[in-house]
């Protein structure tokens, strides 16, 4: 497969495979949170910290509420259509309504340090790990 290595799409394919294989991850094991609620969440580790990426197309920033407490992060909001009246539908596939999801992360986080960014319909939560939870180098004396 030497040829496909240089293909620019290989990087995306590798990412897709990595995302698939962590679908069966037991990272949340033991916590009350589980799969299946809206919105779907992808959680990544970046250096010592964590990043949650959530696709929320069509949700107005003002209709999005994010709360963090302890190691709980609560995401709630509404997604409402902004269609004119008196139109006739050819196709309806998008879903609308409200959501309220709590995810408990199985690590110690610094809830005050969480940063949120919403761009192009994607919400990114930067979740810093608690200082006392970060790995420390042990000095040999």
């Amino acid at each position, binding site marked *: 497969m030497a040829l496909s290595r240089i293909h620019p799409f290989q990087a995306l394919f590798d990412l897709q495979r990595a995302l698939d294989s962590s679908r069966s991850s037991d990272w949340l094991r033991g916590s009350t949170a589980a799969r299946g609620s809206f919105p779907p969440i992808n959680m990544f580790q970046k250096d010592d910290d964590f990043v949650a990426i959530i696709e929320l197309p069509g949700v107005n920033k003002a209709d999005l509420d994010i709360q963090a407490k302890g190691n709980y992060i609560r995401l709630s909001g509404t997604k409402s259509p902004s269609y004119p009246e008196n139109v006739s539908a050819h196709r309806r596939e*998008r879903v609308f309504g*409200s959501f309220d999801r709590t995810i408990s992360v199985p690590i110690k986080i610094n809830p005050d340090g969480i940063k949120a960014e919403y761009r192009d*319909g994607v919400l990114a939560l930067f979740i810093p790990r608690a200082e006392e939870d970060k790995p420390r180098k042990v000095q040999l004396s």
Partner: protein
Amino acid sequence: MASKQELQVQEKQEIAEGKETTIPARYFVPPTDIFEAEDALTVVMEVPGVTKDSMTVDLENDQLRIEGKIDYSNYEGMEPVYTEYNVGHYQRSFSISNKIDRDRISADLADGVLTLVLPKAEEMKPHKIKVN
């Protein structure tokens, strides 16, 4: 809570096998609403993660083709630890049966939602049919 419509997870749908065989990556079908008003056809499509520059909209003959690419370089240095959905580019085509005034088509991308307004050509606007 009972009276509120609660959102359910909509599994992302992949493009059927055999259509994109040259590329070793998966494409997804964006959930789409299409509605018609008296003077225009509007196509609304969810493409989270796609920026204006990486959105392509073509109308050739009666085929409307939409392609949106995500920038996966954002994921560099990120190790997935727990995932519930996959990411990929988006692609979808429709046969537009109405005659469209091509010069007045407008496209807008906001919060990951593409809205295409395809104004109907003058001769295609509805006229009431009188029953004698």
